[in-house]
C-alpha cells in the first residue's frame, strides 16, 4: 500500500472527531454508530498498513529553516500502532455502555476519536519534529477528556496534567532542537543519527539526552514527574483505561525509545554517566509505584500507581541500551497494555454498576459480578507474572535481558523487579481476596441489588482476558516482532 494512506489513517479519525461537534446527531445511538464506524474503519486501515504498507517515507511539507514534517511507518511504529489499533475499538465498545449515563457524550466521543488520530500520528511520525507536534497535540486533545466531569477534582487534575505535560514537552523541545541542529532533519534511523559527539564534548550530548529523557518521561510517569497520572484517574474509565494506561503513557515510553535508539543512539550513550542515571530513575520508579499502589485504598488510583510502576519496567528494559533490553521493553509494552486496560475495565464496570470506588468496599462483589471479577483475576495473575499468562513472558525476558547486559545496576534492577512483583501480588490479590472471600462481618444486604455488567462491557473484557491467555501461551510471534525491531530490521 502506498505511503500516502498513512495520512488518511491519521486524518480520518482526527477530522471525523472535529466534524462530530457541529454534526446534528439526535440520539446517543447515532453518536455511537458514528464513532464505532470511524474507529473500526481506522483500525482496519491501520492493520492493513501494518501488514502490507510500504516502508517509504512520506514527506508532507517543510517549514522554514528546513524543519521537515514527514510520516514514516517503520517497524517500531508498526508495533506501537498495532497495540493501539487493536485496543481502541474494544475500548470504544466498552465506552458506549459506560458513557450511557454520563453528560456531554458527544463532546467525549469527539475528543476521544481525535485522540486516536493523534496517537496514530505519534506512531507514524518520521522524525523528531513531527513526533513532537503530534505529542503536543495529544496533550491538547486528551485534556478535555480528563476535565470531562467539570467538577473541582477534575479541573485540578487537568491543571496538573497540563503543567506536567507541557512543561515536560518543553524539555523535550530542547532536546529536539539539539538533534535537529546536529543531525540532518532528525529523521529516525535505528542506531542513532549522531555519528560523533557534537561540539567535541560528550557532556553536552549527555545533558541534552537527559533533558529529553525527563521531558518525554513525563508522559511515561517517571519518578518525580509522575504526579499527574494518579490524579488523572478522575476521568471517565475508558479514558483512564485506554489513554492513561496505554495510549498517552505508552506514547511517552515510545518517545523515549525513539530518542534513545533512533536519535542519540545507544552506542553514544553507553558508558556515560547518563545511562546509569536514567536506569536508576527507572528502577526507583518501578519500586516506588508498586509501593504506593500497596498503600492506596482508591481502586482506580491504585491501578494508576501500578501503571507508574509498569511503565518503568518498560523503561528499565529501554535504559539497558541493549537490543535484548529494547526487545523485552517492547514485549512488556504490548502485554502491559492489554493487562492494564482489562484491569481498568473491571474497575470501571464496578464503579458504574455499584458506585463503589474504594478497595475496602469490594467485599463480596466477586460472587455478584462473576465475569468482571474472573477477568480481573486473570489481569491480576498476568500482572504479577504468573505463567501461563502474558505478563510472565515479558518479565522473564526483562530479567534475562538484565542478566545478559552484565551490568551490576541491571542485576540490582532485576532484584528490585522481583520485589516489585511481590508488591504487585499484594496490591492485586488483596482486592481480589475481598471480592471473593469477604470478612464475615461485612455488609451483605447491599449486595442483593448488585448485578453483572452488561454484555457491552463484559464482551470486551472477555476478549481481552482471552487475549492475555493466548498471547501468553503463544507469545512467540510478538516476541519475534520485538526481536526484529531490536535487531534493527
Amino acid at each position, binding site marked *: 500500500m502506498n505511503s500516502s494512506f498513512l495520512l488518511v489513517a491519521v486524518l480520518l479519525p482526527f477530522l471525523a472527531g472535529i466534524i462530530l461537534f457541529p454534526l446534528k446527531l439526535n440520539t446517543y445511538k447515532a453518536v455511537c454508530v458514528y464513532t464505532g464506524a470511524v474507529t473500526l474503519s481506522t483500525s482496519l486501515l491501520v492493520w492493513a498498513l501494518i501488514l502490507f504498507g510500504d516502508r517509504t517515507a512520506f514527506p508532507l511539507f517543510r517549514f522554514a529553516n528546513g524543519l521537515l514534517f514527514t510520516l514514516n511507518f517503520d517497524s517500531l511504529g508498526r508495533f506501537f500502532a498495532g497495540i493501539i489499533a487493536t485496543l481502541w475499538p474494544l475500548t470504544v465498545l466498552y465506552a458506549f455502555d459506560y458513557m450511557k449515563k454520563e453528560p456531554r457524550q458527544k463532546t467525549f466521543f469527539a475528543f476521544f476519536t481525535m485522540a486516536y488520530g493523534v496517537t496514530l500520528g505519534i506512531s507514524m511520525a518520521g522524525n523528531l519534529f513531527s513526533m513532537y507536534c503530534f505529542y503536543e497535540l495529544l496533550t491538547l486533545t486528551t485534556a478535555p477528556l480528563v*476535565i470531562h466531569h*467539570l467538577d473541582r477534582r477534575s*479541573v485540578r487534575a*487537568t*491543571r496538573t496534567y*497540563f*503543567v506536567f505535560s*507541557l*512543561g515536560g*514537552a*518543553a*524539555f523535550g*523541545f*530542547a532536546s529536539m*532542537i*539539539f538533534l535537529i541542529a546536529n543531525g540532518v532533519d532528525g529523521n529516525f534511523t535505528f542506531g542513532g543519527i549522531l555519528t560523533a559527539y557534537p*561540539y567535541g*564534548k560528550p557532556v*553536552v550530548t549527555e*545533558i541534552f539526552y537527559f*533533558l529529553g529523557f525527563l521531558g518525554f518521561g513525563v508522559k511515561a510517569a517517571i*519518578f*518525580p514527574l509522575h*504526579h499527574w497520572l494518579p490524579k488523572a484517574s478522575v476521568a471517565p474509565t475508558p479514558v483512564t483505561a485506554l489513554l492513561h494506561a496505554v495510549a498517552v503513557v505508552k506514547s511517552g515510553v515510545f518517545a523515549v525509545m525513539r530518542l534513545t535508539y533512533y536519535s542519540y543512539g545507544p552506542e553514544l550513550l553507553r558508558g556515560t554517566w547518563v545511562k546509569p542515571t536514567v536506569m536508576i530513575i527507572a528502577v526507583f520508579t518501578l519500586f*516506588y509505584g508498586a*509501593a*504506593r499502589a*500497596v*498503600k492506596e485504598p482508591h481502586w482506580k488510583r491504585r491501578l494508576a500507581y501500578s501503571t507508574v510502576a509498569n511503565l518503568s519496567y518498560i523503561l528499565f528494559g529501554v535504559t539497558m541500551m541493549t537490543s535484548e533490553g529494547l526487545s523485552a521493553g517492547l514485549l512488556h509494552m504490548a502485554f502491559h497494555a492489554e493487562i492494564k486496560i482489562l484491569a481498568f475495565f473491571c474497575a470501571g464496570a464496578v464503579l458504574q454498576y455499584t458506585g463503589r470506588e474504594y478497595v475496602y468496599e469490594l467485599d463480596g462483589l466477586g460472587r455478584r459480578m462473576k465475569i468482571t471479577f474472573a477477568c480481573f483475576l486473570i489481569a491480576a*495473575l498476568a500482572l*504479577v*507474572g*504468573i*505463567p*501461563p499468562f502474558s505478563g*510472565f*513472558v515479558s518479565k*522473564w*525476558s526483562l*530479567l*534475562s535481558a538484565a*542478566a*545478559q547486559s552484565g551490568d551490576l545496576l541491571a542485576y540490582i534492577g*532485576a*532484584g528490585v523487579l*522481583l520485589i516489585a*512483583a*511481590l508488591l504487585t*501480588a499484594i496490591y492485586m*490479590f488483596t482486592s481480589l*481476596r475481598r471480592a471473593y*472471600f469477604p*470478612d*464475615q462481618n461485612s455488609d451483605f444486604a447491599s449486595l442483593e441489588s448488585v448485578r453483572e455488567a452488561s454484555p457491552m462491557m463484559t464482551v470486551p473484557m472477555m476478549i481481552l482476558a482471552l487475549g492475555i491467555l493466548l498471547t*501468553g*501461551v*503463544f*507469545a*512467540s510471534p510478538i*516476541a519475534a516482532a520485538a526481536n526484529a525491531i531490536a535487531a534493527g530490521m
Partner: protein
Amino acid sequence: MNILILSLVFLPMIGALPAYFSKNRLQKFCCFFFAAVSLGISAALLFSENMTVELPEICSLGLRFELDGFRKVYAVVISFAWLMTFLLSPEYFAHHGDPSRYYFFNLLTLGATLGVFLAADLSTAFIFFEIMSFTSFTWVIHEETDGAVRAANTYLAVAVIGGLVALMGLFLLHHELGTTEISGLYALAQKSPNKPTLFAAGCCILFGFGAKAGMFPLHIWLPKAHPVAPAPASALLSGVLTKSGIWGILAISANLFREDPAWGTLILALGTVTMVLGALLALFSVDLKRTLACSSMSQIGFILVGIGCLCLLGEENALAARGALLHMMNHSIFKTVLFACAGIVYMNAHTLDLNELRGFGRKKPLLRICFLSGALGIGGIPLFSGYVSKTLLHEGIVETAHAFGGAFLLHLVEWLFLISGGMTLAYMTKLFVALFVDRNPEKQAEGEEKPAYAKFPAILSILCPAVLIPVLGACPGFTMDRIADLGTDFFHPGELAHAVSYFSLENLKGALISLMIGAVLYFGLIRCLLMKEGRYLDRWNKKIDLEDILYRPLILRWLPGIFGAIASVFGENRVTGPFCRACFRFISSAGALFGENKATEPAAKAVFRTGTIATRGVGDLLDASVFALRKTAFRDSPPPSDEKLAEHYYFRIGDRIDRLAVKSGKERKGGHHYARLFVRVHTTLLNTFRAITGNLSFALLMLIAAIVLVFLYIFVVRN
C-alpha cells in the same frame, strides 16, 4: 505416544470446564471420568519407552516433557490418589452447598501437578508449579471460615514469595548454564567456573520448592492449611502436592548438586529438623487432621534426610536414592488412606477434636482395618510398605556415617531418625487408640447405633490404597525393588552393591528400636503427661508459632514500616509533607519494633509521643510560613475588575427571566432561580478558563527557559 503424555497434562485441564458447568450426577461422573482416564493413560505409559516431548515456543520458553521410570511411577501414583479422592468427594460435599468450584480447580490442579512431575526442564516445571499453587489455594479457602481465610492467606503468601524466589533462582541458573533442562544440569555444572552463583541459584530454588514441600523453616502453612481444607483436598495436599516440592528439590539435588557434600549437608540438616519438629508437633496435637498434617511434615523430613544422604554419598548412594523414592511413593499412599479416613470421620461426627471423637470407630471394622493399615505403614512395621522404605533410608544414613568415618553428628542424625520413627508410632497409636479403642463417656451408644457411616464409593476410596500397603510391603523384592529400579534415570544412583535383605536381623533391629522408643513415648509421655482422666490435653504452647513470632510481623509490620518510610520521604507535593511523614514513618516503625513488649514499651511510647508533637510543630510552623507567603508575596493576582460587572450582568438577565417565569406562572420548582444558575455557570467557566490560561503561561515560561538554555549552551560551547 507423544499425544498421550500431552493429554495426561492437558486433558484434565480441559475437563475442568465441563465439570464446572455440569450439575449433580453428570458433574461427579465428569470428574471421575477424567481422573480415571488419567490413571488409564499413566498406567498404559508404564509399559512404554522413555521419551521426551517438546512444545516449542509456548509461553516463549517452550514446554518440554519427559517420561522416565520415576515419572511413570509418579504419574500413576498421582492419578491414583486423585481417583480415590474423587470417590470420596461426592459424599463429603453432599451437605456443603455447590461443589462446582472445588471440582473445577481440582481438575486444573490435577493437570498442573502432572505437568510438574513430567516436566523435562525446570522452567516448564515452574510454570505448572505456579498454576498448581494458585489453583490449590481455592482448596484451602474452600470452607470460608475465618480460620480457613487466615490459613489460605498464609498459603498464598508462601506460594507467591516461594514462587518469586524460585523464579529468581531459575533465572540465575538459566543465566549461568544457559539451560534449565534437568538431565543436562550435571555436566554443565561440572564445567561451570562459577560455583557460588550456582549454589545461590540452588538455594533460591530450594526455597521455592521447599516452601511447597513443607520444609523447615517454611513449613508454617502446612499445619494450618491441611486441617481447614476439605478432607479430599487435604489428602491431595499432603499426599501429592507436597511431593511436587520434593520433586523440585530432587531434580536439583540429584542432578545439579550430585556428589556435592556442602549441598548434601544443607539438605540433611534441614531435613533432620523438619523430621523431628514435625513428629514433635504431631505428638502434641489433639486434632485429628492437624496430627496427620504434622505427620506429613515429619515424613517429608524423612525423605529430605534421604536426599541429603544421596548427595553426601557420591557414588555409593544407591540405598539412599531408593529409600527416598520409595518413601515418597509410600507416603502418598499412606496419606491418601489416612486423610480419607479422617474425611469419613468428619463427615459423620462434624468435628476433628480427638476428645469428641473418642470411640467413634468402635464397631466399624472396615474403617478400623483401613486406618490400621495406613498407621502401620507409616509407622514402618515389617510387612507393611513403610518398613521397606524406612529400612533403606536407615541403611543410607548408616552408610553415610560409615563413609564419613563415623562422625558424631551423623550418628546423631541416625538416632534422631530412629526416635522420629518412634514418635511416628506413638502419635499413630494415639490416634488409633482414641478413635477405635477409647470409649466416649457421653455419646458412645448414640455413635454405635448408626451402622451405615459411608456409602460404597467412599469405602472404596479408603479400601483400595489400604490394601496396597501390605501387598507392596509383604514381598518387597518382588514389588518395591522393581519400582525402585525404575528410578535410576532420574536419581542417577551408583551401582547397588548387593541386594538388600529386608527381613534380616540387622534391619529388623532398626524397626524394633523404633518400636520400643514408640512404646516408651506412648506410655511414658502420652498416657502420663498428655492425658488426664481419659481426656487428651493440649499442652503445646500456642505462642510458639514461627508465623506469628516472625513472618507475619516481618511482612506486615516491619517491612511496610521501612518501605513506607522510604516511599513517604518522596511522598506528596506539600512543602512539609515529605519531611513530616518521613519522621512519622520512622517513629512509627521504630514504635512497632520496640512497642510490643513490656520492657521497652513505655520508653518507645514516650519517644513516639514527643516525636509526634515535635514533627507536628515543625510541620505546622512551615505550613504557617507557606500560608503567610501565599497571602503576601506570592498572592494570586486579584480577579479582573469587570468580573463583578459581568456577574451583575448575568444576574440581571437571570433575574429578568425569573420574573417573566413568575408572571407566566412557570416558576421553577424548589427555588432554583435562573439568576443563581447563570452566575454559577459563569463563575465555573471563568475559573476554569483562568486555571488553564494560568498554567499555559507557566508552560510557556518553561518553554522559553528551555530554549534560552539551549541557545546559551550552543553559543557558549561553540564560541
